């Protein structure tokens, strides 16, 4: 084994992959959320449809999409290897186990929160990404040119499929739990630990674990209550 594979397959190397891909996914969430706010522009979805078209045709974005796929792939793959290794490290459990009150529930259940987010992610892709790329979509005219009506699809799903909105909100809650621990944990994994900035990192982690899910959660709520299709 070369030193590179040797490093990447060690426990610390796998944690490094978790941490780098995890932080990369956080940056993706921020971009994704900012773009989605175009839904609220009040222009009947014009800006959002142009944005969707740009995201699916621009060459640079397509390359980044491969990076995103890799990021998710490596994060999930490494999570499953680590989770298996970690449970193999204790083949016989305790009859009684009392977790210290300083240890957060979120930190002990990263696999659970991650898996629910993953389940949602698959449903999410089937609902939006797949039809946009591979199915016949209703078209709208914007300045004389036809565009796929992604805005209409979003509005229809959030308005008509109540189960989807419920799943969406649950997944967001779990994403918040995942990030509440994951964000600060990722920096520790990278070896960043100092009394000057530990509390700043934890603070940012707490903020994004609330702001990001809350931002996404406004969407089903908006289409449910305030928007008629």
């Amino acid at each position: 084994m070369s030193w590179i594979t040797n490093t990447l397959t060690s426990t610390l190397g796998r944690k490094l992959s978790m941490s780098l891909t995890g932080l990369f996914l956080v940056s993706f969430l921020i971009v994704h959320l900012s773009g989605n706010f175009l839904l609220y522009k009040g222009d009947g979805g014009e800006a959002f449809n142009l944005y969707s078209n740009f995201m699916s045709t621009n060459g640079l974005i397509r390359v980044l999409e491969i990076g995103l796929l890799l990021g998710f792939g490596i994060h999930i793959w490494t999570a499953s290897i680590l989770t298996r290794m970690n449970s193999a490290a204790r083949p016989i459990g305790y009859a009684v186990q009392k977790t210290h009150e300083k240890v957060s529930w979120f930190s002990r259940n990263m696999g659970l929160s991650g898996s629910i987010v993953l389940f949602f992610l698959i449903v999410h892709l089937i609902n939006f990404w797949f039809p946009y790329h591979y199915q016949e979509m209703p078209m709208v005219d914007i300045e004389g040119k036809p565009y796929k009506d992604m805005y209409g699809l979003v509005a229809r799903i959030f308005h008509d499929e109540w189960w989807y909105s419920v799943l969406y909100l649950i997944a967001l809650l779990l994403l918040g739990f995942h990030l509440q621990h994951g964000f600060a944990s990722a920096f520790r994994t990278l070896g960043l630990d100092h009394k000057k900035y530990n509390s700043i990192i934890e603070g940012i982690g707490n903020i994004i674990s609330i702001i990001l899910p809350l931002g996404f959660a406004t969407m089903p709520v908006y289409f449910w209550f305030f928007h008629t299709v």
Partner: protein
Amino acid sequence: MNTMNLTLKIWRQPNTAAKGELKTYSISGINDHMSFLEMMDVLNENLQKKGEDPVVFDHDCREGICGACSLVINGRPHGPQQTTTCQLHMRSFKDGDTIYIEPWRAKAFPVIKDLMVNRSAFDRIQHAGGYVSVNTGSAQDANAIPIGKEIADEAFNSATCIGCGACVAACKNASAMLFVSAKISQLAMLPQGQAERNRRAEGMVAQMDQEGFGACTNTGACEAECPKQISISNIARMNREYLGAKLSSNAV
């Protein structure tokens, strides 16, 4: 002084290969000034009088410095106080309590008998680099090598790890990272440890992985249960040491 009667649920396992089980014992007249291990001694005397096999458990100094004593007591390593089991007193319990007593649970710590586990995995990790191998000769003048007070204190804190393994027992992943990081840190911070710094981090982490300990999820359970208050800052330092070593050492 109070005396108390207790019900004990103790893990009994005749040898490494055997399948163990929890067995129930009643014990009466326990003085609340006794240490937990003294309570176990009383139990064993009773068992021996009855001609039964006494419960095997690890202990040595009985003053909180050697790291030999273990036991997961009511689901917490070393019991309800953040101390060693030999320093835990029966006043932490009440008359009528039921106390579960189990061994450290980890694949890398196989049970030898009952509550005694084999912790030689820790020794092998130490042998993989947890030392300074230069010939030190006779003791130097204390001030010959200047070391800042803060660094000296921090290195000393890391060096107080007694190798008990409570961190492994407490971790949901049975990870040994608190122990290993303390052993790497105590030398990485001092001038004497520099010569072998890279080799040490690479060697000890590789051995830790080979022993079958889990990875770190940064839950902080180890630090919360460590009887010597070793901080998880050591784990972050180990991550730096290891990555730095991997990127700069000559071991290809």
